[in-house]
């Protein structure tokens, strides 16, 4: 089964021999290499201190590894303009960072309007469509403080998906969810993988096994299994 799937893979993101050392001398990543296939859910697993957050920051272009390269579509991401790269790779942070002063609709449409330069009306329409597709239309007028953790997680993903990235990086998406909600969320996520590739950084093994097509396990800055 793995064999057949692999043939389909386009391997858009290629991580080659990256290492990262903090200023205090702690080596967070040690010569890591792996590929992240498209139209899949890839899960990066590991205990805290395993280097998964550092890896996520490298992937998100927030920090640069001292050694090795990350290729996106055969191009070093260091040579890709931040704005272009961000449109290809979305990120949903662990604490979601929904904008508290805006409604769910505005949280999503703001970037469509200001970054993608769609008109206000069009941005609103697209947002409505998306929320409908993701089954969270009822949240459209709510403020982030008025919705539950599971709902907020979906809204944050919707906000990132609205910009139609090729990859979506999720950092510990289940950390604030109870087991039942986690399971629902996992099923919801699986339906989306045909349009978007997910990279999920998590320490939740049950969730990783539920959703991931392939799992990369990090331990002490190195890959444990693939």
């Amino acid at each position, binding site marked *: 089964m793995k064999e057949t799937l692999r043939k389909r893979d386009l391997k858009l993101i290629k991580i080659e021999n990256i290492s990262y050392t903090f200023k205090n001398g702690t080596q967070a990543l040690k010569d890591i290499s792996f590929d992240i296939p498209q139209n899949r859910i890839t899960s990066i697993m590991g205990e805290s201190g395993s280097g998964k957050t550092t890896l996520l920051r490298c992937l*998100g272009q*927030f920090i640069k590894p001292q050694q090795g390269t990350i290729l996106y579509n055969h191009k070093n991401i260091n040579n890709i303009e931040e*704005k272009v790269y*961000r*449109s290809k790779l*979305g*990120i*949903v*942070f662990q*604490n*979601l*960072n*929904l*904008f*508290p*002063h805006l409604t769910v609709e505005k949280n999503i449409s*703001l*970037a469509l309007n*200001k*970054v993608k330069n769609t008109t206000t009306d069009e941005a609103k329409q697209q947002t409505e469509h998306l929320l409908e597709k993701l089954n969270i239309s009822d949240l459209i007028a709510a*403020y*982030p*403080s*008025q919705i539950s953790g599971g709902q907020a997680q979906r809204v944050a993903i919707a*906000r*990132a998906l609205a*910009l139609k990235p090729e990859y979506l990086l999720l950092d510990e998406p289940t950390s604030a969810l109870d087991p039942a909600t986690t399971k629902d969320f996992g099923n919801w996520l699986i339906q989306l993988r045909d349009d978007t590739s997910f990279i999920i950084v998590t320490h939740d093994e049950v969730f990783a096994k539920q959703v991931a097509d392939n799992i990369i396990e990090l331990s002490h800055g190195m890959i444990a299994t693939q």
Partner: protein
Amino acid sequence: MGVISLINEVKKQKILYKIIIAVFCILFLHTSVYAKNSLKIALTGKYPPFSYYNETGELTGYDVDISGAIAFELGMDADIITTEWDGILAGLLSGKYDVIIGSMAITKQRKKKVNFTKPYYYSGAQLFVAQEYVENIKNIKDCYGKKIGVNLGETYEHYLRNKHPQIDVVTYKSTVDIFKDIKNKRIIGLVTDKMVGSWQIKKSKQAIFPIGKMLYKEDIAIPIKKSNPKLLKKINIALEKIEKKGIKQKIYDKYFTINNALKDETQANSSLFLFKILKGFAITLFVAIISLFLGFVVAIPTAIVLNSDKGIIKRITRFIVDFIRGTPVLIQLFFIYFGAPQIGIVLSPISSAIITLSINASAYMAEVIRSGLMSVPYGQGLAGRALGFSKTQIFVYIIWPQAFRIAIPSLVNSVIALTKDTALISIISVGEVIREAQSIISITFNPIKYYFFVAILFFMVTFPLMKLAGKLERNIKKKGFEVD
């Protein structure tokens, strides 16, 4: 008469001869109509109770009444011209008017330039004490070891400290305050100008009485040009006549005689006073609003700099903001008002007030906005970056709206505090509400009533703001913002 002597004098100056002929022609026409029955009298109109505009806008006072009486004796009309004290003698010498009946003291220097009539009144330093001390205090020496009030900056303070150092001298900003403290028994009496003091006591209706003779005395007389001895003689005769007829005493009594059955001949025109205070308050609000707006505009970039990481600009800004917040507004106000002209920038009182209060407001608001910016979680900017917003967009659409909402309650509190600070600008003679109130109190001697009214006006503005701040804070908390 005045015209002819003027011509005699200037005939000596040949250069001006032709001009004088022309002036003569004009004056001849003028005098042929008026001169026979009009005496031109100068005074300031700014020296109550000698010459001042009363509540109905009428020029009145002791000097004004004396002027009328003299002109009447001379069989002329009193043509009163109000002019500034500076240059009032120069105006007499240049023939703009015939006499000055403006409470001018005879001095050696003045005597060199003009002739003086006989004094028409005497004034000088006078001790006054409250009724309960009249029994025991018969002269200034009886006040040794007791507290006596004087106005700050008047010569009486200097006089008492030199001649009677045994007296405990207490200085005040105005006679109104002295009267209040006599009532409160903090001091037993005061030393001030005999005439002005008597008038103020009369107006205040307080039981305060002059004790003993004047501590020193000044002769007040009417100056006339040396080239006009005829007029001098005529006026001296007129002064004698009004004295004999008892007119002078009547006029004196009207303004100065203290008795307990006082009738207030100038009933306070309350509605006019209230209008003046409201007008002053409008100026106060105008200055407050402009300053707060300018302060807010400057505060935003200042707060951004303060919230930045490091660097010399941040450190300089930090120091300036701390300095402004750590020094009294009053001194900043003096600094701008009196300091700016030293480097060649002369500002009007109102501009100085607006500049100072704007700077002050910006420092306080910058601090509030900075704390608002700081309380927006770091992740908000990160999320914006991940969504592809530019740095400016992140600030405008994500950070600022949140920081501002968080800062609003504190900002409104700053607005309240700064609005109240506007009261300080009266010190640099901006005609705002406090100054108007002070000027009304100097006539009515009722500080409690008018200051209370001013306090109410301020409260009417600040109270809704306080309510608003509370409401906004609750709303913000409801929407899930963190408020410190």
